[in-house]
């Protein structure tokens, strides 16, 4: 594991959920990982929509971000499945295709950048759940989290498996191991656990009705079990679950009220941070996490 990372912020986190950013910085600090800022970093750009319409430009824009991280001399860290999807995939493609790298660099030259794809792209859930792992994280936490929750993996964290090889995307356990063994959380299985949140791939922007149908099915399945909160690893899923529950309540008369907590937030809480920004969220702003002594 690296002791320093270029921190890629992305779009949703700094604009909608700054608490995810502050808790991530808190967690990295506690772990002794140095954060290097990425000057002039742009949009990742989103792996679903942008790539589908214009793959070459998508690659160049992503490569520019990778080039910025490389000039820091540190691997990239993301806290978002979407950013992870794009940056990982482009980095991988550049690593294994010299022709492509030449073409991309020819276009980056005008912008004053050069990409080598010599580094790695990592997701915070991978750093916490695998690089540090559920056993070692206990050296850093101050309390266990007294919570019965459910989890949501999201899309680009584990797929495509042949490239990422983090965990089996059909039946993963990396987050369960981390939350249960590492943070002391009790997890419940629920129907549609591995179903999509309904936001990605431009669905939320283009087909809000379909997006809300998917969210409804997912949240209805969550409500069937006595979970106190839903844990996720991606700000876009976070936005869909947090804001979407309110949309559903307004438009369809449902009474969803499940607090949504990002892996950085809950890890920061376990490390001793009391205010993890729940009060800024749309759903269950009054929710308070309970600690349990180690």
């Amino acid at each position, binding site marked *: 594991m690296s002791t320093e990372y270029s921190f890629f912020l992305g779009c949703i986190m700094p604009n909608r959920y700054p608490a995810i950013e502050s808790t991530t910085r808190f967690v990295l600090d506690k772990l002794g990982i140095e954060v290097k800022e990425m000057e002039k970093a742009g949009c990742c750009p989103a792996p679903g929509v942008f790539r589908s319409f214009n793959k070459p430009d998508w690659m160049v824009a992503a490569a520019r971000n990778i080039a910025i991280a490389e000039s820091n001399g540190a691997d990239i860290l993301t806290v978002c499945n979407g950013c992870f999807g794009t940056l990982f995939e482009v980095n991988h493609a550049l690593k294994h295709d010299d022709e492509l790298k030449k073409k991309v660099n020819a276009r980056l030259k005008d912008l004053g950048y050069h990409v080598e794809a010599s580094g790695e792209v990592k997701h915070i859930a991978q750093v916490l759940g695998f690089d540090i792992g559920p056993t070692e994280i206990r050296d850093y936490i101050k309390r266990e989290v007294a919570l019965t929750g459910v989890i949501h993996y999201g899309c680009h964290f584990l797929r495509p498996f042949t490239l990422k090889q983090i965990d*089996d995307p059909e039946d993963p356990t990396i987050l369960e191991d981390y939350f249960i063994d590492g943070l002391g959380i009790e997890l419940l*299985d*629920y*129907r549609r656990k*591995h179903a999509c949140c309904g936001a990605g791939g431009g669905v939320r922007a283009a087909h809000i009705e379909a997006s809300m149908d998917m969210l409804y099915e997912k949240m209805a399945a969550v409500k069937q*079990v006595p979970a106190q909160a839903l844990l996720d690893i991606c700000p876009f899923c976070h936005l869909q679950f947090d804001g979407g529950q309110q949309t559903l309540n307004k438009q369809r008369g449902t009474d969803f009220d499940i607090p949504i907590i990002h892996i950085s937030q809950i890890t920061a809480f376990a490390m001793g941070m009391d205010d993890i920004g729940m009060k800024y969220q749309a759903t269950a702003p009054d929710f308070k996490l309970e600690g349990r002594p180690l």
Partner: protein
Amino acid sequence: MSKKEDTKKKPRIGVFVCHCGENIAAMVDVKSVAEYARTLPNVEFSTDYMFMCSKQGIQLIQDAVKEHNLDRTVVASCSHEQHWPTFAKAISDLGMNPHMHTQVNIREWDSWVTDDREAATAKAKRMVAAGVARAAQKEEVGTEKLPITKRSMVIGGGVAGLRAAMDLAELGIPVVLVEKETSIGGHMTMLNKTFPTDECPMCTLSPLLNGVMSHPNIEVLTLSEVTNLEGSMGNFEVEVTTKPRYVHDNCTSCGRCAEVCPVEVKNEWDHGFGMRKAAYKPFPQALPSVFTIDMRHCIDCGSCVIACPVEAIDFSMKKEKRTFKVGTIVVATGYEEYDPTEITAYHYEHPDVITQMQAERMFSPTTLTKGKIVRPSNGQVPKTVVVVQCVGSRNDQVGNEYCTGVCCMYGIKNSRFIKEHLPDTEVFFCYIDIRTPGLHYEEYYKRAQKTGIRFIRGRPSSIEPDPLSDKLIVDVEDTLTHTPYEIMADLVILSAGMVPPKGFGKLGGKLGLLRAKEGFAKEYHIKMGPVKSSRDGIFLAGAIQGPKDITQSVGHAGGAASAAAQPLVRGYLEKRMDTAVIDKDLCTSCMACIATCPIGAIVVGEAGQPVVNDAACKSCGACVPACPTGAIQIRNFRDRQLNAEVSALLSAAKAGGSNE
């Protein structure tokens, strides 16, 4: 004296250019090639003809040989492999040595791979020039009759192996049948019914089983594996290792040992649906009808020894190695059912997710459920069953691109069986395509449709245990109606494909067999040699050559037996001697050739020098460049013969102004 004169005599060569219909003539100006041939040295006659391989074409060659007193022929047509034997026979019928014929391949190597008529014609001329030069240098090679051992070995005692053993034995050939399990019969004995007639497999198989066991020409070795092989076609020496059964043949199969045995374990034969003792017979009709002591689980209590009324149990039995001399070998090691564990989205570890082979056992009356269809997790009758096709076949993700070909039929068979026994149970059949080729198969499918089975065209994306109940959630889209389904299933049956048996690599290596990329043993030719293996004298029967149903396996095995019997019935091996030959004066006995020969055809002779086993030599030529003194040469592929061919090719290219 006279021999030397013969070789110095000026050759008289005839060149025959074939049109092969349009195959060659459309791209090559055959007339100009024939005319060109006449200008080449030693050519006395040349012509072209539509089909040289036809009766008339052969007659034309024979007439020309007689009329022009030719002593060598060159036919420019297709490959050596395809028609050299045809034309060699044509001249040998006239009393000439067949090796005086030379084949030039202007089809596969020229007309079929070129789209420029002028270039193709020029190339054909160069090739004919080279062929003529080679023909002039050719030597007469004899054919030897080699003695063989009139006995065959069949490896694998499933339905294919049994059929092959029986067919060989009925031709009067002594057969050794080697089976690694305790009993013969293989997968067929595990089945509940067979399609398309819904017959009882044991009823149809047992005459063959009993016939093989009691046939005077067949020696059955169970608990046995082939552990080494030496020699070549006609004279193999096979080492067979037999594991101890710890029960002598005087066992009367009374079963007292099993009654008193305190150890109960899962019966492999029942795939999780039956138990057995450490003293056991895997199924009631098992042959040989002798119990076996499973030493891995035996606790050495001695109860069985005391209980046995005929004192058949003997713990002092040891592993035995025996060597058999056989002329031919039939490999019939069958297949294995694909293990779906790696498709994690299907949760095969769940007790209510089973394979078709497990379903066959559950439906059989001799296992734990006594033939009742139940959910293994709780013993209750399933109300909803989902059958999933193409598990581990037609699946790039697990590396099995091929279609197993039999799963549609057995999947339909078992779906029907459930529907007939439990009419109120919903049966969903999820498939990619229904493949029912062959007589009575499509009819079988149509009858199944009428029983109310719900056929869904779609491969389930996941089969997950429901966290809120004891059901399984099957997610599948009906791609004909674009309807997503979420089926709450009580029982899921996976139609797992057929894969090569584990451990075949070891046996295949010992036998020196080539394997296809899918892992099955590679046949010699997919159309014309489906029962021949890559090695002379070893034949393939049944599913080891590729997935097959019982009908196909039995037919294939019959073919293998007939092919394996041919040399043994004839009584000798005819071997063309265009093999490697060692010049004793040049040989320094460095043994480099022995190290190079890929099939072990060169051995150390009595005087300590390398000797070629003519029967085994495949004339591949690997030994030739390995020899530091040029002592080893292949007859008719000697350096001087190849040099003549290459020189002629180059000078023809030069003369034709070719820049190649």
